[in-house]
């Protein structure tokens, strides 16, 4: 594997020389630097996914704990007794308005009196 990589590197150099397209110097650890950066970025990515998962899990557990606490502390304790509560049903009251119609001229006084008495 390492021999293969070394050969690829040398063939790459030969090709660049034949094409007259080469730099004066190439760092020996050029590819190693890039590969270490790639591996580092991968680790960061996997760590960020892990952190993301932890954050979600902690948020969910916090929500559950809060709900549990609210349910237990805010609930009123109602005590039930065996005795019945007597209810007296009151008869509904009515508001009565005495309305006196204006008297008609054609109606006799007697009839007016009768109508008033209604």
């Amino acid at each position, binding site marked *: 594997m390492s021999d*293969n*990589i070394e*050969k*690829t*590197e*040398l*063939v*790459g*150099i*030969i*090709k*660049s*020389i*034949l*094409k007259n*397209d*080469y*730099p*004066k*110097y*190439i*760092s*020996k*650890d*050029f*590819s190693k*630097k*890039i*590969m270490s*950066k*790639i*591996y580092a970025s*991968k680790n960061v990515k996997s760590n960020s996914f892990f952190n993301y998962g932890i954050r979600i899990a902690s948020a969910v557990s916090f929500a559950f704990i809060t709900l549990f606490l609210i349910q237990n502390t805010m609930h009123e304790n109602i005590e039930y007794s065996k005795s019945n509560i007597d209810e007296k049903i009151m008869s509904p009251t009515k508001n009565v308005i005495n309305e006196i119609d204006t008297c008609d001229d054609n109606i006799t006084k007697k009839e007016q009196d009768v109508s008033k008495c209604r």
Partner: protein
Amino acid sequence: MMDDDKSIIDLVLSGDDSKYEIIIKKYQPRIISLCYRYTKNITDAEDVAQDVFLKAYNSLDKFRFESKFYSWLHRIAVNCSLNYINSKEKIKEKETISENNGLNVVESIKTEDTPFNSYNVGKMAKNIENAYNNLPEDLKLVIKLCDIDDLSYDEIAKSINMPIGTVRSKLHRAREILLKALKTTDKYE
């Protein structure tokens, strides 16, 4: 060559990141050389080239194999180099502003790679050129068509009326001679 890249890229995309190092090794001299044309500084050229390979890695799944991989990489390298020039110009503008304000600008110290940490490609080139010029004509032709003109094995076989197997073996022999010449340069100098 393109098929070669495809199989390597497929492996990288399937999760074998270590194979990406083959791609880097294969194209690093040409990409660094391209970046150097813009940056005019070998250290900066390597920094920009690093960015190029990282960007290519991050968008490897977007490469559709409609063109050669090197063409795609070349385009990324040009964009990165232009971005570098723009950012450098901005820094220069800021520096001139701060100089006018009488502030001392501390130049960033860049460690130039010592020859011990680098391949002396300039020195290697002389040996390779000599070895190439001394190659038998048939091997020289195959190397020229493959490595300089970027033809595929099929195209070479058709152009010189030779079976593809013979093309492969001639190319292998030619490369072995050139590799030997390269190793005599002693790349660990």
